[in-house]
């Protein structure tokens, strides 16, 4: 009868122009099955649409799937917009075809861990869960 625990809320979005969202759907379904509330916004989202949705939905985490090579522009842009909208606390994570040095650079800009192609979804789930247990109030 305790209402203490609440589901982690995650926005899963696919920014940019590539029209391939199978990966994002697989991730969304895996997070749902891990007990999270997943707001799925689909393809071709601009950073502004992603940040607006994240704020309106009061999510804890934004997960982006970027396969187009535009990750160095898109991740920091979403971070910047969320900060401006008063939500610097939202974790931004995600995956795609991203070279290791780019991942390091993005992390220095306030982006969370990023995952390469073929990463088991369990890894992403446990990353989000351990981040949540550290950063979210019970």
């Amino acid at each position, binding site marked *: 009868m305790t209402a203490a625990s609440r589901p982690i809320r995650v926005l899963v979005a696919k920014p940019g122009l590539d029209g391939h969202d199978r990966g994002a759907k697989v991730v969304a379904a895996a997070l749902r099955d891990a007990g999270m509330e997943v707001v*799925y*916004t689909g393809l071709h989202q601009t950073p502004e649409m992603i940040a607006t949705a994240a*704020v309106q939905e009061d999510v804890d985490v934004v997960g982006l799937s970027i396969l187009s090579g535009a990750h160095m522009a898109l991740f920091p842009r979403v971070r910047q917009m969320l900060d401006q909208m008063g939500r610097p606390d939202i974790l931004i994570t995600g995956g795609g075809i991203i070279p290791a040095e780019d991942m390091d650079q993005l992390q220095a800009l306030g982006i969370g861990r990023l995952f390469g192609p073929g990463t088991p979804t369990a890894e992403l789930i446990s990353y989000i869960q351990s981040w949540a247990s550290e950063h979210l109030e019970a």
Partner: protein
Amino acid sequence: MNFDPLIARLRAGNTAALARAISVVENERPGFERLLAEVHHSLGRARRIGITGPPGAGKSTLVERLVAAYRQAGQRVAVVAVDPTSPFTGGALLGDRIRMESVALDDGVYIRSMGSRGSVGGLATTTREVCDLLDAANFDRILVETVGVGQSELDVAGMTDSTVLVLVPESGDGIQTLKSGVIEVADLFVVNKADRPGAEQLRRDLEVTLGLRRRAGRQADAVLWKHPVLLTVATKGDGISELIAALDRHHAWLLESGTLQERRTRRLLHRTREVVDRATRRWVWEEARADQRIAERLEDISAGRVSPYEVAAEVLGGLKQGERT
């Protein structure tokens, strides 16, 4: 927790504050009832419109069209879209925003997705309260989209001013329209995807059913609401202005007939009972240490040495004794 700064920012139109306040209520965080009490005196401005219907009927697309139309008329619009929560994992995939992309960046639009979280009436347990916050945040229209419903998920009708039931030509024949349930509580009927065969037939079937019901009703003709059945093709925008006009007519009727006041009073009665009920349950379970005491006796219940009824009586008996001492 002091919610004053949050409420002030919410009233000033800060989206992050509104979103956070909704989470406080949705998660029933400590003090959420105080937050609701604070905003209660400024309610009643928004028109609350429920959109319900079976999965795939086009509810989200219809909502997007309604939002766009209301925005053109200069109204601020909030949407609450409920999708089912898994009873097994507690997870949910909330996908209604996908269909609302064209209005997503409009400053005068706020969209919030909710998981149903164990509620079986087509809404989440706190959707009503969330609408109060949206009302306090000065939205003119609040559109509540239920999960895809079957015949008996009627919660939405108890919490909105107008309920729209969205059907499609494939929704069934005249017999389906005669059944009890959601058909009985809707104020307006929409046959969406009306460019498909069977739309006219379904409309006629619905009108016959509604006419029969009117004749059997006891209300005087003058105060009777004649349920409209409208044809739409939401993907093309066909029939939307007619639906907007019908919603306006319904609102005017609600005002003239006194039904609006009646519905809102009934809602408040229900709400008050609900708050008492929630507090009672919390109090009993905590005070009687019910979970713990049931766990202690579970082996006995399972082995058939004692019945669930006797254990329940023990738990509640302890409560009464505690009160006396």
